[in-house]
């Protein structure tokens, strides 16, 4: 029987396995950041043990750093203390840190791929659920808790049971105005926010194969939003082209050797998955969420379901979500005014996303009723945007391009959406209070968010293309 890609990578990383026990699973790359690491370092200190492999540990500050005036000390005391703690821990344990202001600084899931640290066939973990992003390169990447961060720091391994395997196949041509964010929001709306629990997902099919690396990252990034541990895509020429020449990517002979191995990384034709789902790209239109979990999404021209159409058992939580959002059931969202537009997060803050937005807003101006924040995923994305003149396009449109960070994706720094306000956001979570206490979030693609920025309301971007 053939093997899936997940099996191939998984099996080659099992250090030790004992019946009834989880596998001791080797980690090739471990990313850490300021929020989920301090207690892990504390643990090491208490046990009086060093970091097992500092070369495989990569650190950045991203979750609570300010996005304005990054050259100044952080004003907010608790945030500052957490960032200082990371600096101190990295120094003490000999870990390289791409801290605030460093040319390689940025959101952890953006800098790994960008620097060529993320490579096919790897196992990657981070104390952050969107580690699934790295799966776009054909890696097993997943989020872990702080106790596990401590495990990896201490042993370069974690204990894991092998997950079940799901294949999601998407075929057909995407329609005008539909981008990768719409694909993943569509899939989650179909299988719900818990439909992938217990699984690792391989995305396959012609539609996926035709996507760029950055678009693939957006898809893998949101695997966690359907409850899956992670998602991956078999590497191909598009992957190899993307990696070649990046800072830490293999070179010369090493490159040839690596490439030969990477080419073996695909599911065998007779591999068996525990579950297979198929979707047709032509069925997807630009998507928007209306509720408080990412599964509550719909095509932008659709109406929010009526209470009567919801399964009786789910009505209570459906109503709770709509009450929070201050929306009626059964209504369309088109034309609904928004107050904020947030371009950012590890889902959609790479250079292609900014280019997509820039090409739409070029020559246009934002509506008066909205505030628009553009938070690049990394310092390098910011630099490139400035080099390409994207910053001037944004300025002319009334958008503010800031420094990199997680920002309003989770509202840990001062970039919070005020209570009761509506924000259309390119991030990945629309939970109650995610973007600030009482904030109301609509998740959408960068293109749909760009259209809303120009009109000041929820808009079908296809009317402007």
């Amino acid at each position, binding site marked *: 029987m053939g093997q899936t890609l997940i099996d191939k990578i998984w099996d080659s990383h099992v*250090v030790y396995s004992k019946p*009834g*026990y*989880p596998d*001791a699973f*080797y980690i*090739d790359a471990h990313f850490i950041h300021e*929020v*989920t690491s301090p*207690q892990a370092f*504390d*643990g090491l200190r208490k*046990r009086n*043990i060093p970091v*097992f*492999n500092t070369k495989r540990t990569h650190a950045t500050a991203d*979750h*609570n750093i300010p996005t304005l005036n990054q050259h100044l000390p952080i004003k907010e005391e608790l*945030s500052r*203390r*957490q960032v200082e*703690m990371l600096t101190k821990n990295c120094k003490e344990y000999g870990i390289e840190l791409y801290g605030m202001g460093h040319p390689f600084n940025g959101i952890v899931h953006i800098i790994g791929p960008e620097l060529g640290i993320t490579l096919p066939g790897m196992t990657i973990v981070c*104390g*952050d*659920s969107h580690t699934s992003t790295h799966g776009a390169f054909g890696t097993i990447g997943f*989020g*872990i*808790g*702080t*106790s*596990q961060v*401590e*495990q990896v720091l*201490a*042993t*370069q*391994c*974690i*204990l894991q*049971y092998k997950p079940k395997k799901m294949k999601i196949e998407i075929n057909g041509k995407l329609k005008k105005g539909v981008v990768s964010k719409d694909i993943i929001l569509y899939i989650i709306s179909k299988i719900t*926010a*818990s439909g992938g*629990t217990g699984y690792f997902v391989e995305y396959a099919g012609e539609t996926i194969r035709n996507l760029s690396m950055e678009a693939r990252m957006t898809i893998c990034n949101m695997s966690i939003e359907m*409850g899956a*541990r992670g998602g991956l895509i078999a590497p191909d020429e598009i992957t190899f082209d993307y990696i070649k020449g990046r800072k830490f990517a293999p070179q010369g002979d090493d490159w040839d050797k690596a490439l030969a191995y990477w080419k073996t990384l695909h599911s065998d034709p007779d591999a068996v998955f525990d579950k297979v789902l198929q979707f047709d790209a032509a069925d997807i239109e630009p998507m928007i969420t209306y509720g408080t*979990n990412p599964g509550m999404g719909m095509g932008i021209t659709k109406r929010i379901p009526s209470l009567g159409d919801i399964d009786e058992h*789910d009505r*209570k*939580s459906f109503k*709770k979500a709509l009450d929070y959002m201050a929306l009626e059931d059964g209504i369309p969202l088109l034309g609904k005014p928004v107050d904020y537009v947030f371009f950012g997060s590890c889902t959609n803050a790479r250079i292609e996303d900014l280019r997509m937005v820039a090409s739409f807003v070029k020559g246009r101006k934002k509506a008066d009723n909205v505030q628009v924040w553009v938070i690049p995923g990394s310092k390098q994305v910011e630099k490139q945007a400035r080099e390409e003149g994207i910053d001037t396009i944004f300025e002319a449109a009334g958008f503010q391009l800031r420094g990199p960070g997680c920002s309003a994706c*989770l*509202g*840990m720094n001062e970039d919070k959406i005020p*209570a009761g306000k509506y924000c259309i956001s390119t991030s990945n*979570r629309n*939970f*109650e*209070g995610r973007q600030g*206490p*009482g904030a109301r979030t609509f998740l959408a693609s960068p293109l749909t968010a760009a259209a809303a920025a120009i009109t000041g309301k929820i808009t079908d971007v296809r009317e402007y293309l």
Partner: protein
Amino acid sequence: MQTFQKIISTVVPLSIENIDTDQIIPARFLKATTREGFGKNLFRDWRYENNDENKPRKDFVLNNPLYKGEILVAEKNFGCGSSREHAAWALADYGFRVVVSSFFADIFKNNALNNFILPVTVSDKFLEQIFDEVQKNPKIEVEVDLLEQTIKILSSGQSEQFEINPYKKECLINGYDDIDYLLSLKNKIEEYETINH
């Protein structure tokens, strides 16, 4: 060292589905650098009006003096969303040792177990029975027996088996953790590293 065998307690019924870790502990409270003190911000935005500690929301269960105990009972898909272990720390710090639901998100389950909180997955029917019983009488007690892997409503005698993987069960009972186990494999890990990398 913490260990876990059997707990008998009254329960706190939280009849909400899809409770994500942003609700359990909102991101703005993740700035601490120790594991302690998160309990006071557990379910923060559901607990207080306008984020004001002087204005507890009367309709939220943690503010209802009728309900107390070490066992939290919630509707399906508990702990989805962000991987923050702070959610488990907040529950533990508040005093919960068991969470009962019909479905748990993967990462949360792991985080809970690593902090000696037992996630007990029960059938939808049994979950409903607990909610029914506690609605009739807030003082009912529930027994969670890890050795036998059973959960029992003491007033009505209804009970159910639950699953837990044998390794984690051993850890909880004996009070040791994953790092202890992994460190015992150190030679094997070093060997793997030399051969494969």
